[in-house]
């Protein structure tokens, strides 16, 4: 039985703005097991980042957890205050951000930025911390780590900086790493190297990773399980094979159809018409209904529940209801081995 590291139970996060309440995350439930890479996929503004930052409680004061529980390694941290969260951040929960050019402090040497985290969570001397810092740089694949240790971030390229950010994030042996678009700002070859590095680190340390991305190709390479988010809700969650080869939600069909590899040469890329909804006053039913050519009348009125397709695969669409008409799903990815 897999050991759950992170559990979100019916988590809802809202922002209070001048124009009213923005419901960024709505009723999200998921489980992340030990040593597992869970990818969260969705378009901009669908709540991926808010969801992950709400676990570390990094969100601004205007946000609040409206309902639900956050359970980390068996411990309910929903009501943790700043002081308790500080011990978790870096020590148990860690985060890597999108743009390595801005996430490092430009004036502080890389080494010091790493040891800062180590000294914080471990009671060790400066020399030991330095030794560990150099080890971390070595682990993330920085050549000549001892010399690089004393250099400021502007001496590093984007890919190397992201490796440094990873070294900082991993320095105190966290149990869960949130990688928020960690490879988006990098070019493709560097991206591939960082992905391999993440897989490698997972195998070495047994860390659990929440990998947030909007790039299905990247997700396919790295993820054990995939959760697709739309308008603050998880619309489909399952193993990578479930979601890629047997998608059930029309939004996921749309995403798959829009992949360049599924498009005939010379033809235009398939798109999903319309825009994601503004989450100020989310629609009562399925938020995707207005863009969905398979939408049923009930989609506009009532939120679909999560239907179980298999013990690992769930999707929230009325099309899975017994009473719904049988719709022929567009042909999407096929397994190569079938």
């Amino acid at each position, binding site marked *: 039985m897999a050991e759950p590291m992170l559990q979100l139970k019916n988590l809802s996060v809202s922002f209070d703005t001048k124009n009213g309440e923005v419901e960024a995350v709505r009723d999200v439930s998921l489980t992340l097991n030990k040593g597992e890479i869970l990818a969260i996929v969705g378009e901009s503004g669908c709540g991926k980042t808010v969801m992950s930052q709400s676990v*570390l409680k*990094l969100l601004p*004061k205007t946000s609040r957890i409206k309902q639900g529980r956050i359970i980390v390694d068996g411990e309910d941290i929903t009501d943790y205050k700043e002081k308790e969260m*500080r*011990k*978790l*951040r*870096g*020590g148990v*929960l*860690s*985060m890597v*951000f999108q*743009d390595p050019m*801005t*996430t*490092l*402090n*430009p*004036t*502080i040497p890389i080494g010091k930025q790493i040891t*800062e*985290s180590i000294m*914080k*969570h471990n009671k060790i001397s400066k020399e030991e911390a330095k030794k560990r810092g150099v080890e971390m740089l070595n682990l993330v694949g920085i050549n000549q780590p001892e010399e690089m240790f004393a250099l*400021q971030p*502007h001496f590093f390229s984007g890919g190397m900086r992201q490796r440094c*950010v990873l070294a*900082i*994030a991993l320095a*105190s042996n966290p149990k869960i790493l949130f990688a928020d678009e960690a490879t988006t700002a990098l070019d493709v070859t560097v991206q591939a190297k960082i992905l391999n590095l993440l897989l490698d680190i997972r195998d070495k340390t047994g860390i659990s990773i929440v990998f947030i991305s909007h790039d299905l190709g990247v997700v396919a390479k790295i993820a054990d399980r995939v959760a697709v988010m739309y308008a603050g809700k998880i619309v489909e969650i399952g193993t990578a094979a479930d979601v890629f080869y047997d998608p059930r939600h029309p939004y996921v069909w749309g995403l798959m159809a829009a992949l360049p590899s599924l498009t005939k040469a010379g033809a235009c890329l398939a798109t999903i018409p319309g825009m994601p909804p503004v989450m100020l006053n989310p629609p009562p039913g399925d938020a995707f209904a207005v863009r969905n050519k398979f939408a049923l009348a009930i989609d506009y009125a009532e939120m679909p529940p999560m239907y179980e397709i298999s013990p690992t695969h769930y999707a929230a669409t009325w099309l899975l209801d017994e009473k719904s008409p049988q719709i022929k799903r567009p042909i999407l990815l096929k397994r190569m081995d079938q």
Partner: protein
Amino acid sequence: MNRKGMLAEKILRRILWFLISMLILSVAVFYFARLAPGDPLQSYYGDAVESMNSTELDAARARLGLDGPIALQYVKWIANAAQGDFGLSLKYKMPALDVITPLIGNTLILGGVAYVLVFALAIILALFCAMHEDTWIDRIICKVGTAAYYIPSFWLGVVLVLVFSVNLGWLPSSGAYDIGKSNDLLNRIQHMILPLTVMILSHLWYYAYMIRNKLLDEIRKEYVLLAKSKGCTKSEIVLKHCFRNVAPTIVSIMAISIPHVLSGTFIAEAVFNYPGIGALSVTSAKYHDYNLLMLIVMITGVMVVSSSIIAQFVNEAIDPRMKLTEVSAWKETSQTSSL
């Protein structure tokens, strides 16, 4: 080019710029001072000027070096100034340098102490406000600070004199020391309390607010999120990460603020009748005392320009990205790689 050569070239270039800016300053002030209406002879000879005939007037002008075209006067002035002779003060009828020497120390003490106190307090206040951003204490400090900053300093000076000197009799109202007590430190400090209070109140919030906002800009940056996700506390983030990154800006602000604080010193000197070059510069402008005015302007100019040069050097020491040497080294490599 090697590092040493670069440094020498850099210093030489700075000195050259320094000389050029001083030259431009002296030309401008020399010319504009003479545009003001009024006769400098009046300052020197007093009412006797009215009974002089034109030959006597011409002779007097020639004696004081006020004859001939302005350009020629300037050339003469600068030739003398280069040898350390800044001419005669028309009002005090003695060398301008001798007029200033005993007073400049007073101004430097008052201005220097005010400057240090203003920035020490401004940085402390700014750090405190940044750490407590948007809490009630931050809001109260912001409002009180803004109100205090907008009290005109000459009015505040008069009110302080009224309360603490006239009504309570605690502190002296004017001067730098009581007669015969010029070496009495306590006496000097007593005389400085009121001018310093005025200067600090009229400058403090301007800089505290500027530094506070710089810190808040910095706190919005993404690296703060990474620092936070490492488990750093708010005060650690502000002190260790943000403050270091705004330090170059603070140094620049401090350097640029020298004229501002200096002008504040001049006002405080005027209000409290404190014997310094600020009060003197007002007098010299009033009496068309060109030589004295030029000397004061040049001294002020040297302070301002050299302070900005010092700021650049300090900036480079704090923020390695600002080093000219590395920029040029980078340019060299990028040029060779493009070939």
